[in-house]
């Protein structure tokens, strides 16, 4: 009787002492296994294309004379949104240049463009598949949740182990973190298209592919653009974190400044990131409103 009481007391005081889940060991083993088996694969097949796109973009952006770049931004902002946004873009980029972080901005912009390129490349098809198959989306959804909510620091180290340090692991981490919105919003945009419009397309003999490209996708485009906007913002928010594992650019300014307690340097990098983010946000929003599907549906 007293033994039973003793047992119950121990159970109440420390119920976790009875079981030790070896999660740490399991994860470590899994990661080690992945690294051991996929290291060569990822360094031969994943790194080169990612680095290639990154280098290409960076080369192209650096080739533009900064003055011409500023003018281009003015025109792009004007065309995509309004002349105000054009002027805002011009002023923002000029400020970045005057602060002396133009080259770092070019690196960061290249990182963002590369990450977004891969997010769109994989995100759009995945979003379209999700919209067409409930089962596919049911499987994909928890994966997206994990991608979005796992703190990036957790997968930075495995990324480095797989891809070594530099821009590539930073890009991979950024792509993982920034891809979910474009998948989700593509899926949502396509699913939101009015049923009667789909029915009309079907009634006139459209194939599934024609329905997608002539009706669903154009009408989903404003939503897809909102997803793209989110993807861009998330990839920008990753540049500082990516700097920890060796990615360059404005993020590195912030990280290096903090490490050396050079607050000024860190702030210059931070302001640069904010300005870049605001300009990219306004421009992509303007593009979303320009999309033909932004016209009122139905009614």
């Amino acid at each position, binding site marked *: 009787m007293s033994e039973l009481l003793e047992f119950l007391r121990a159970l109440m005081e420390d119920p976790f002492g009875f079981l030790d889940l070896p999660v740490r060991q399991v994860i470590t083993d899994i990661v080690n296994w992945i690294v051991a088996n996929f290291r060569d694969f990822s360094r031969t097949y994943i790194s080169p294309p990612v680095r290639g796109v990154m280098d290409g973009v960076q080369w192209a952006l650096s080739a533009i004379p900064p003055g011409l770049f500023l003018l281009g931004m003015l025109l792009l902002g004007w065309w995509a949104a309004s002349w105000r946004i054009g002027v805002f873009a011009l002023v923002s980029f000029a400020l970045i240049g005057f602060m002396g972080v133009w080259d770092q901005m070019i690196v960061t912009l290249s990182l963002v463009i590369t990450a977004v390129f891969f997010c769109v490349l994989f995100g759009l098809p995945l979003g379209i598949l999700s919209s067409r198959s409930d089962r596919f989306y049911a499987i994909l959804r928890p994966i997206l949740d994990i991608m979005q909510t796992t703190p990036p620091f957790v997968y930075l180290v495995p990324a480095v182990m797989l891809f070594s340090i530099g821009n590539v692991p930073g890009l991979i981490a950024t792509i993982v973190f920034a891809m979910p919105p474009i998948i989700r919003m593509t899926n949502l945009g396509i699913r939101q298209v*009015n049923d*009667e*419009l789909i*029915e*009309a*397309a*079907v*009634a*006139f*003999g*459209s*194939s599934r592919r*024609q329905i997608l490209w*002539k*009706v669903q996708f*154009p*009408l989903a485009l404003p939503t897809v653009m909102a997803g793209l906007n989110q993807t861009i913002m998330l990839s920008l928010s990753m540049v500082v974190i990516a700097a920890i594992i060796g990615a360059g650019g404005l993020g590195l300014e912030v990280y290096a400044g903090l490490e050396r307690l050079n607050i000024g340097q860190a702030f210059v990098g931070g302001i640069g990131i904010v300005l870049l983010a605001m300009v990219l946000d306004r421009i992509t929003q303007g593009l979303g409103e320009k999309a*033909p*599907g932004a*016209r*009122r*549906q*139905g*009614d």
Partner: protein
Amino acid sequence: MPLLEQGKTKDEIREATGQTVGVNNASFDIQPGEVFAIMGLSGCGKSTLIRCVNRIIEPTAGSVFFKDPDLGEQDLTKLDAEQLLALRKRRISMVFQHFALLPHRTVLSNVAFGLEIQGRSKDERKHLGQRVLDMVGLGQWGQTYPSELSGGMQQRVGLARALATEAEVLLMDEPFSALDPLIKFDMQQELMKIQRELHRTILFITHDLDEAMRIGDHIAIMEAGRIVQIGSPEQILVNPRTEYVANFVEHADPTSVITAGTIALPFDSELFVKVDERNGIQYLHRHDHPEIHYGRDRDGYLREVRIDDREIPVRPLAEILDARNGDSVPGSRTEVTLTCGEDAVLRQVLRSRLHSTLPVIVIRADGRARGLIDDPELINGILEKRGHIP
């Protein structure tokens, strides 16, 4: 399905299985070139039924036979996916209740949508699309977007899109229900005008009996997934088969549906009294109007109308309506006997009362006099929606 075959009702099946029976046992034939209206309240399955024809909704049982101009008679429910697409591209098109225009495309590009799916060239699309757009009176609006048009104009675009593919069969799912009453009436007129030109076979869904009667050559009335009566508008109005149909019909406007042939009091009725026979002409008078004598020869042709010894002129009603262009001055009635065909509708016959004080004589297609319409027949036709009761 087995439950249906056991003869359970829609409600019983919903309770037992949680599934809803959309349409059950709805059989009908549609002749080429006619407008076949399906009338029923919302939720009775008429939209489901029309979607079974082009299989936007797959029927679980039953057949849809279609005489394809190239392939002969086909059961549409047995087509494979490819044949079905071909059918929808070429043979059957559709007009939707809420127009279903693509908001990101111009009006012209919407009209040409079916042609695009058919794989026609850009020039052809533009040319044919513009022609149909002209036909519905929107020739100038090709480059605008649907959201810039009013509801009535949007549905003209929807109609143009359906006409553009030159499909023989047009499915129209409550096309005018979302429109204002005045515009709705305009659109009905427009549709009938276009139909007189093009002679498409139209399956027209509506919840408005007056609309069904105005447009339909035949009407099927649906209740809870079943068709309860099929017939011409007049047959349904005059002879509703169930109480459900009778309820509808009670509030319908009979004046443009019921025909003179239906309400005329036949000359061989016992309400006519024979007064005289001379020179091979038999004279009759209606028992309550002994002063008017109608003279018919042995073959049944109307020879003369007399009051006492005066001969009353006889003129076709249509002539007078045409001459006066529908307008008439009340109080300028004369003593004239008007004649009309059996297919003249009540509305036209009523108008005769503005011109003449005397009954209208109904003439058969072969020229023989069938009977006459006086006030009792008119009133009976309007109030009771019935013909002469022997």
